[in-house]
């Protein structure tokens, strides 16, 4: 498993390598660069949205997500790089000629138009006759399930309904790609989850390519066929949700996408050394010798009785329970890796969790890692602080700086 880490096998990378836009792709962004004044907001950003697929651009606030979207829509102009829609460069096209559909963060429904007028606006602009317009508008209203609200004004409907209208307004003129800017963040959690599911199903059905923007990793996992992680204007990694979650290439990606244990280690040919007692096997020469970081998810940690060896590919030796907290569906266990007190090769170990708590431990006290167990494991094999356990890993990946 860990062997795959160093090999990038993302189809879209090929397109950049030979410098021809992927003609199959709905949207290709290549080497996009943008500064506002002295601030470089986007730095060499490249990604592809395949036909009928969705890509989520995931990043913290201020990382340049909206700027990327505005560049694609033609609302801003790049300092460098290219944008292709269906293989065609849009450099010379004004926003209104690009035929993209944007769902803005605040939906931007026209306040003086009814729901139906909003949806029909793109058709009206294109000179579509009113009876044809009404027909398409009605079809859209049925599609989003808001037929009975057609004559209401935007302020008379809920946030979730407004978002549906914004999507219908874009779909009505059959855009080449849909761009969603944090479209779910303003909604209450229940509406958000339901709407996300509906929209994903809708896009799947209509086969409309979409770029979603979000700072919410859970949303990214749910909406994206692929996820691109943006950090301060640079793309850290692009891949399927499975790839970016299980094979993160950077510490940023690892910790952003969920709870992760990040442990400093040393790579040798054929093995990663956490400490002299703890060696993790890797494929021969797959990692250059030197300092590395080992990343593993709490749910990839297996705990068993000290007498036994966990049935996992990667045993980590003995440990001592530091803390146990039961959260309903699962149980979080903090484990200090113990040995003969010889964790000398580890200068600094760090584990960072979703909760934001940052744990540092020196070589002397041993590394503290987080493990996650199901409630059934917790019931069958109860653990308490001070208990000795045997630790193993199901999966890990290696980060090279």
């Amino acid at each position, binding site marked *: 498993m860990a062997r795959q880490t160093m090999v990038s096998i993302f189809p879209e990378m090929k397109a950049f390598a030979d410098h021809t836009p992927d003609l199959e792709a709905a949207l290709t962004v290549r080497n996009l660069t943008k500064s506002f004044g002295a601030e470089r907001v986007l730095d060499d950003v490249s990604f592809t949205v395949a036909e009928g697929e969705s890509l989520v651009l995931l990043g913290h606030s201020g990382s340049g997500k909206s700027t990327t979207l*505005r560049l694609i*829509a*033609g*609302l801003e102009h790049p300092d460098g790089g290219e944008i292709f829609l269906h293989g065609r460069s849009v450099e010379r096209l*004004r*926003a*209104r*000629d*690009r*035929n*993209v*559909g*944007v769902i*803005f*963060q*605040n939906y*931007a429904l*026209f*306040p*003086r*138009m009814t729901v139906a007028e909003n949806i029909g*606006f*793109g058709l*009206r*602009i*294109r000179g579509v006759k009113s009876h044809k317009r009404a027909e398409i508008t009605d079809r859209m209203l049925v599609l989003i399930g808001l037929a009975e609200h057609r004559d209401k004004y935007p302020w008379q409907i809920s946030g979730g309904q407004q978002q549906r209208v914004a999507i219908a*307004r*874009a779909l009505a*003129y059959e855009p080449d790609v849909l761009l969603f800017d944090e479209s779910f963040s303003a909604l209450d959690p229940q509406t958000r989850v339901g709407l996300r599911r509906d929209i994903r199903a809708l896009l799947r059905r209509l086969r409309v390519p979409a770029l979603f923007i979000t700072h919410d990793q859970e949303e990214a996992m749910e909406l994206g066929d692929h996820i691109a992680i943006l950090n301060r204007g640079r793309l850290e990694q692009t891949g399927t949700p499975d790839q970016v979650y299980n094979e993160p290439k950077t510490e940023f990606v690892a910790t952003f996408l969920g709870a992760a244990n990040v442990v400093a280690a040393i790579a040798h040919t054929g093995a990663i050394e956490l400490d002299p007692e703890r060696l993790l096997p890797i494929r021969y020469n797959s990692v250059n010798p030197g300092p590395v970081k080992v990343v593993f998810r709490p749910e990839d940690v297996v705990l068993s009785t000290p007498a036994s060896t966990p049935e996992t590919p990667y045993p980590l030796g003995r440990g001592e329970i530091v803390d146990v907290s039961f959260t309903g569906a699962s149980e979080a266990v903090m484990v200090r890796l113990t040995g003969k007190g010889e964790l000398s090769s580890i200068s600094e170990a760090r584990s960072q969790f979703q909760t934001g708590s940052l744990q540092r431990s020196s070589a002397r006290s041993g590394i503290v890692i987080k493990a996650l167990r199901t409630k059934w494991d917790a019931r069958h094999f109860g653990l308490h602080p001070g208990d000795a356990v045997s630790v193993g890993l199901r999966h890990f990946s290696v980060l090279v700086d």
Partner: protein
Amino acid sequence: MARKKDLQAVARRTDLARPIGVGVVVTAMLPLVILPLASIFIFGLSKGPVHFWEALVNPAALFSLKLSIMTSSVATACNVVFGIIAAYVLSKYEFPGDSSLTIIISLPTAIPTAVAGFALLLLWGRSGLLGQFLEHTDIQVMFTTSAIILANIFVTFPLAFGVIKPALDNLDTSYEDAAETIGATRWQTFRYVVLPSLRGAIITGALLTFARSIGEFGSTIMVSGNLAMKTQTAPLYIYTKFNEGDIEGANAIAAVLAIISFAIFSMIIVFRKRLGR
């Protein structure tokens, strides 16, 4: 419960500031504003409504009212159109001197109306800067209806702009971005998205301009020549009739002007409320 009532009673008793404050405000307003206005109507109706009606349907009186309404409407239309264009330009584009231009547009309200009238005379008068070129033509600007309109435009110039500009500044640009990505041209965006959103501000601006125009006196008396049945506006009619000792004649038109102003004022309040929504 009883305790709470007691406390409330105590609070009411000790808070003397409220009745005193209200009393001061009303007492001050009575001789300054309320009684003068009331006396127009009290006087107007003191000799009976027939008398009042006769003074009102006097041809010169009716003419002055019509002239005032016409010139004010034209000035209002001009300033609203200009205000929309100026607000759009200054709100959407950056150019050198844009902030000075905003100040210059706003300047006319700060200039005394007599000065404004005098300035127009110096420009369009017989030996004026532009007027001298009209000397040998049939075109005459001063002492005509055009002069009244020019004076009205000058005096009310920034009023519509002053209401529309902030409304446009506060309009979320994402509506325009949305319209553009949907495929609208700049004109379509303006026509279908921006303009409807400014409706309240435009109506308020127009009402303010009209209200200010219809009462304009200082500049009008200088540029119009005050010719009865030709260039005599309603405020000039009131002034002239009063000077001639025709108090009833002056009062009839004064009452009508006051009612028009009340009506406009109420409409502005209604639209302000709508605007807030």
